[in-house]
């Protein structure tokens, strides 16, 4: 199922990428859109609260006033408030499913998932209390079903549902509690969202401007064309029936209404427990976290800058060598993506020493082993022009890609490949061209694998690709799990282009004695 979903997302992203510029693709901005909707909800909420009457018997009239008499301002704000809340649920759910499908909640990344679950619950509580405040027929329904459900737990003394027996039973204090919850719960959710992002670096919490404008304009149009309305005043003398439920917030209410309390309670608790245990279902064999080798570390902090998970901190140097700092890996945060090794200037395949050991490396997928695999793969290349493909493990399936002209080498993430390997492959004449492939554009499992790779190859970010490497012999193909055919087509095209270029230009042998590659080589 995960596989299928992953393909579905990749396909949808691909379709959207045909009309949206890459950065604006809504599916690549789900978390950021969640925040954007949140702010719209807050601002419109403050506005409607000005006109909202907090008495239970007056609330309905005040909301009607906004919708009918002041449709041009408070009415629009009310619609924005409702539809942005719905939009938030949509992007939150898509975001959750996508992070799950892309395995972004596994291993050390459990934290964002487990903090996401209470956020989801709180967003639902906010929406449900929101519908309560309108005190129309739907609000009455929500109040009845919610309180009957809470009563079924048997933890409250007097049945709460009795508060809704008749107009005489209604009380303002309970209504005030709902208003309080409707304001307090989203604020707490915001705090938990902040925690949600603690373990990743540079979270994107603002959508690109173009996308934000598009979303806001569509919300405004929707608010004008189809304003949010109430469904008639609440009447305890009538069973609330034939309601237009908000299926984003209330999809479970029919179940809560119709099924016995013990069933819905146990189902809810089991579901909650399942949600919380998703990161460990099924348990994953984890690679060991990155390890620092101080003897080869010069304290340049590139690993620190490139780690997407806040797993590295730079601390006081401890080995007496004349560098100010050294990296320290927190094993509980490290997801073993290898981006740090790809960033380390001492990950130098040119080193002649048997001991090729960068300052930081994955014990279960070392740079030395990578060089050995490169040599083994190159040895099988017999047909020119030869192409060496580096592909990331999660993003593309490389099985069966290799042949007399094409060699495939897997890396943990495109970002694990130090750019100097490209230079190494070409200047040692191991191949005539290099292709780096991985997850679909913007969907890097390890968040920044693509971004850092592109920046390193374009010589915009350390460690940069040496200037002497001819750009026409290097290609990136962000194929993704669906892109095998595209990858093969691109490789074929690349080989034709290489053939047109002729043989690998002879290059001066690399200065093997130097231990550390300088930025520009």
């Amino acid at each position, binding site marked *: 199922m995960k596989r299928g979903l992953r393909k579905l997302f990749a396909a949808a992203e691909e379709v959207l990428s045909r*009309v949206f510029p890459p950065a604006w693709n809504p599916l690549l901005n789900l978390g950021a859109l969640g925040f954007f909707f949140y702010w719209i909800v807050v601002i419109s909420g403050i506005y409607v609260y000005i006109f909202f009457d907090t008495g239970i018997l007056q609330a309905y009239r005040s909301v009607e006033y906004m919708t009918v008499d002041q449709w041009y301002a408070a009415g629009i704000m009310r619609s924005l408030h*409702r539809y942005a809340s719905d939009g938030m649920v*949509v992007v939150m759910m898509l975001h959750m499913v996508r992070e799950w499908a892309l395995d972004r909640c596994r291993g050390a990344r459990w934290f964002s998932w487990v903090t996401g679950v209470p956020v989801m619950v709180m967003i639902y509580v906010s929406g449900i209390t929101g519908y309560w405040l309108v005190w129309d027929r739907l609000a009455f329904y929500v109040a009845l079903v919610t309180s009957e459900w809470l009563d079924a737990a048997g933890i409250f*003394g007097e*049945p709460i549902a009795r508060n809704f027996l008749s107009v005489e039973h209604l009380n303002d204090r309970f209504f005030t509690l709902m208003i309080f919850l409707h304001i307090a719960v989203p604020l707490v959710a915001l705090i938990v969202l902040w925690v949600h992002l603690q373990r990743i670096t540079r979270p994107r919490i603002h959508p690109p401007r173009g996308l934000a404008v598009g979303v806001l*304009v569509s919300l405004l149009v*929707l608010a004008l064309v189809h304003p949010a309305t109430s469904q008639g005043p609440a009447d305890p003398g*009538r069973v609330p029936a034939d309601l237009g439920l908000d299926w984003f917030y209330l999809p479970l209410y029919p179940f809560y209404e119709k099924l016995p309390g013990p069933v819905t309670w146990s189902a809810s608790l089991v579901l909650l427990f399942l949600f919380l245990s998703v990161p460990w279902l099924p348990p994953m064999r984890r690679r060991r976290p990155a390890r620092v080798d101080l003897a080869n570390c010069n304290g340049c902090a590139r690993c620190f800058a490139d780690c997407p998970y806040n797993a590295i901190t730079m601390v006081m140097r401890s080995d007496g060598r004349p560098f100010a700092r050294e990296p320290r890996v927190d094993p509980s945060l490290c997801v073993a993506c290898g981006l740090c090794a790809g960033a380390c200037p001492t990950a130098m395949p040119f080193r002649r020493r048997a001991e090729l050991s960068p300052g930081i490396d994955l014990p279960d997928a070392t740079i030395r082993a990578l060089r050995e695999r490169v040599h083994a793969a190159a040895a099988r290349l017999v047909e020119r022009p030869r192409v060496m493909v580096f592909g990331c493990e999660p993003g593309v399936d490389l099985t069966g890609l290799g042949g007399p002209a094409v060699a495939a080498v897997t890396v943990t993430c495109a970002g694990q490949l130090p750019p100097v390997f490209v230079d190494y492959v070409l200047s040692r004449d191991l191949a005539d061209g290099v292709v780096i492939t991985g997850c679909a554009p913007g969907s890097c499992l390890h968040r920044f694998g693509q971004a850092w790779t592109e920046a390193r190859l374009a010589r915009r970010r350390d460690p940069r690709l040496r200037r002497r490497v001819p750009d026409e012999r290097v290609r990136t193909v962000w194929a993704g799990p669906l892109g095998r055919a595209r990858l093969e087509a691109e490789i074929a095209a690349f080989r034709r282009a290489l053939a047109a270029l002729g043989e690998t230009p002879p290059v001066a042998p690399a200065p093997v004695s130097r231990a550390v590659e300088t930025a520009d080589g």
Partner: protein
Amino acid sequence: MAEVLRWLGQGLVYALAAAGVGWFAQNPVWHNFPPDRARLVLALVHGGARVEACRRLSYEEIRRLPPSERRPSTCRRERRPVRVQLRLDGRILYDAWLPPTGLSGDGPSRVYAKFDVPAGAHCLLARLEDRGREDVFAWEREVTVMLPPRGRLGIDFKADKGGFLFHNLEARPGCPS
């Protein structure tokens, strides 16, 4: 041209998303209650009589209590269960002994129950017994109720207001026989 198509495509995506949000925010309608029925909601909280009346302590008993707890009389606080019965047109709709709440059985008895019945005129007999007697009801009230389709009649009980109370819909005393 391609550029224009891309903008149109974006517009289409936004329009579809907005239409989806707008539609599912209030559709499809949830048909949760048939149009020809009505609902009785029984929701009452009432404490049954104490199991045992208060009684004076003997001098010996008082002497045996710790000094700070000495008092002239003692009351066992447990309550009797309360029996509630609803009959609609002579047919028993509900009949239960409700146990007292609270860890030591000293709290009031409670019930919250719903009954869906055909709309129309009905004779409703509500009875309650709070002293633990079999086949005797200390409180009872018979009313004729006109239940409109989807009407919701609230049935409560307050001893200090004369017993059963009927809310929301008209309930005329007595039934035509």
